[in-house]
């Protein structure tokens, strides 16, 4: 009976969390629409501004009409945006004339996922393990080295780290390529060479992102573990005759993981948004670069698309966090 009660509570919680996610996504879409509309200036005016003398007021008005800007902002334009967006239509880019926003984003997505995804996986594995170990052996020599280095890495801007990496490993030593995601010469090579070329291009930008993330994960995991080792149930475990390793694996690890999981899954949401600064440093053709280009070109539809994608991934990451937390911590089930 207790089990079914528990099960009912769990599914109700999942339903609640999912409903909240959908509601949040709806709000994100509305905000996304309004955010760019409150910026002063009219898109038609701005687009045709360069040709002010040869364009008549009637022509501007007809352009506004064809974009639907003559109709009231709320509710007509908003409803139109929401209905097209939720049908999966993100509109057309201003800058890359005539190209669909969805196509532009999908084109850039693989490069960004490869870059930030690999960096995240490396950072999670290294950072969480190192942080947990440092917290477990608090005050020891390894803890001092790991915590000190992590704090330094955490507080270093990734783009600066990227530039230093390029200077050292690309410009000075010439070991690795310093920009782009592939060499044109290797674009037509056979699979192993093609993969090797892509991997070599990944190393420096991945490092630039991963090192900072490792610092962040170490700091959080260490703090979580430091809290756990002072808990009463650790004394109980010791009294029960567990070895230090058994205490770590059976009683400390999962408890220390709780705050870390929140951070990690939330960070996973940023995989699709790209790393704007690092992508710029390495001329990496990902979402981050697309965002920069869109800002420079006042490409509102693309910006809206990117922001919506970011919003979506953060909401999904939040959802995953909530569900993962329920699995790890019975108290929130």
């Amino acid at each position, binding site marked *: 009976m207790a089990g079914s009660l528990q099960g009912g509570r769990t599914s109700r919680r999942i339903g609640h969390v999912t409903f909240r996610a959908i509601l949040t996504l709806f709000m994100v879409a509305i905000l996304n629409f309004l955010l760019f509309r409150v910026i002063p200036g009219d898109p038609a005016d701005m687009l045709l501004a360069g040709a002010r003398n040869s364009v008549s007021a009637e022509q501007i008005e007809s352009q506004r009409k064809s974009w639907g800007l003559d109709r009231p902002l709320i509710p007509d334009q908003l409803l139109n945006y929401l209905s097209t967006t939720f049908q999966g239509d993100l509109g057309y880019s201003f800058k890359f004339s005539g190209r669909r926003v969805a196509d532009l984003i999908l084109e850039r997505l693989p490069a960004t996922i490869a870059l930030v995804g690999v960096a995240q996986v490396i950072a999670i594995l290294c950072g969480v393990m190192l942080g947990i170990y440092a917290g477990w052996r608090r005050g020891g020599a390894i803890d001092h080295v790991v915590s000190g280095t992590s704090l330094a890495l955490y507080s270093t801007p990734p783009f600066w780290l990227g530039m230093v990496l390029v200077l050292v490993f690309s410009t000075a030593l010439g070991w690795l390529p310093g920009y782009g995601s592939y060499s044109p010469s290797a674009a037509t090579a056979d699979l192993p060479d093609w993969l090797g070329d892509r991997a070599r291009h990944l190393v420096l930008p991945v490092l630039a992102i991963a090192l900072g993330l490792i610092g962040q994960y170490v700091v959080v995991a260490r703090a979580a573990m430091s809290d756990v080792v002072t808990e009463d149930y650790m004394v109980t475990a*010791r009294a*029960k005759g567990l070895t230090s390793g058994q205490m770590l694996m059976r009683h400390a690890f999962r408890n220390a993981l709780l705050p870390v999981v929140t951070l990690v899954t939330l960070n996973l949401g940023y995989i699709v948004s790209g790393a704007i600064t690092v992508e710029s440093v390495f001329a990496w053709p990902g979402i981050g670069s697309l965002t920069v280009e869109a800002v420079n070109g006042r490409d509102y539809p693309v910006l809206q698309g990117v922001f919506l994608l970011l919003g979506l991934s953060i909401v999904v990451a939040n959802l995953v966090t909530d569900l993962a937390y329920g699995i790890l911590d019975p108290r929130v089930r």
Partner: protein
Amino acid sequence: MKNPCQQAKAPILAVEGLAVDYRLRGSSLPTIRDVSFEIQAGEAVALVGESGSGKTTTAMAIAGLLPPNAAVSGGEVRYRGDRLPIDDDAAMRPHRWSEISVVFQGAMNALNPVHRIIKQIAEPCQLQLGMSRDEAIARARELLELVGISAERGRAYPHELSGGMRQRVMIAMALACSPSIVIGDEPTTALDVITQAQILKLLTALRSQLNLALILITHDLSVVAECCDRVMIMYAGRLVEDGSVADIFANPKHPYTKLLIESIPNPEHGKRMVRPIPGDPPTLQHRPSGCAFRSRCPSAMPVCATEVPNLKRWEQGRVACYLHPPMKHEEKALANA
């Protein structure tokens, strides 16, 4: 000369001259000094004192569970005549839980919140007794029934149980490896009075059923009266009095014990208000010379400031106070020792 009845039985636990120091910013603070006592199999002894008197530190030292900033600086603990390696974590491990187990206070934090209680009870059976997983679970189910919880509740997590239930789980866990000695570190402190009474009744019943020796750490003398044979009073890291419950309550020798007993609210003695002991116990950093209690003692004498009074044996127990000189034959025994 010892009481013949005590001499007949070999004690299950003997603590001799135990001393514990806490380290604080490089300096060593003497916390426990010269604590000696013996416990017989099946005996229930209370260790009573105010917060900071060293009762928990004493018990944790005996169980080899001192925190990293504390260390045993003298004395020894013998279990059935063999020295326990209380200052060596690895060497102590085989003795843990199967000889001495602990029921910690505030069972909420003493149980791991992310594991089912059955798993936590079964764990020491698997690790210390080498049982298989199924055997350990079966044993844990028996233990749950033993403390009055239906075995089905074993699937619950600690937060799903009431405070009294969690304390029962803690007791079941402490019995997992059939220890001879159970240390109860204020096991009823966080509970309401009714639950407290139930837990004490359970402990008393299990003690006689399993012939357990019980060391009950408490600051609550009413708890002592209910379930212990003997009381040891601690003050500022030393034992000041030791005697049977009946003797100590009827005829306390040490002025501190007297004041402690007078401070218990007793409805039978009319509408008397609770009478607190004036003053505060000395801090670790500022232990006075001589008897630590002298600044609060109504009968302090000049001699109390000179030297710490020894815990001297008399017919009915032991007391450390200059008001109670040792018997003639005891003096001889001390001189011979």
